[in-house]
């Protein structure tokens, strides 16, 4: 799914960037562009970083509403 609609960045690209070492939203923004326009996806990006570092459930199975 598209995580950042403004820049058209999908979850796969974000996950790859996190795996490659991006450990905060600013670093993710520099790598992928995600979260650098309206910023509404920044909480999702933070959660994806947390999930990677703590090994939590996959973002695809989240329910954030």
């Amino acid at each position: 799914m598209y995580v950042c609609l403004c820049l058209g960045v999908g979850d796969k690209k974000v996950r790859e960037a996190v795996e490659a070492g991006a450990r905060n939203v600013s670093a993710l923004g520099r790598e992928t562009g995600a979260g650098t326009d309206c910023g509404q996806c920044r909480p999702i990006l933070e959660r994806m970083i947390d999930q990677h570092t703590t090994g939590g459930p996959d973002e695809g199975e989240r329910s954030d509403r």
Partner: protein
Amino acid sequence: MKGNARIVESLNELLTLELTAVNQYFVHSKMCENWGFTKLAAKFREDSMAEMKDAEDLIERVLLLEGVPNVQRLGSVVIGENVPEQLQLAAETERSALKLLQDIIAACEEEDDDNTRVFLEPSLREEESHLDWLETQIELIRQVGEQNYLAQQI
């Protein structure tokens, strides 16, 4: 007619979800159209219009209860990058809508607002049928494979 504040706020919460779904399904429809999956495009478009109609009814109900329809808020518009993802994300949206509707109907019972409860019950059935259709598609993809499924959507 002055409505119960808790019910008005809940209806606005549902309005946010409906407006978010309108955009989600509309973009899904246009993506499917762009890929050539005309049958799915038509179905997503129809669902988007149905959610818009629900939003219209909700706005009317909030105004009748002398509230202010909050069209400012929009949830995260979750767009799938391919058809199976679109169906999964739409199913998640419908599950959220069903849960919220059930919660509001329970709140209506607590607050003795029978008219709002009766107003919401058809939506509950409608969202249930949307979810059922989506779950059928997801199961079809699992059983016949993505390519076979998509070949039927051209």
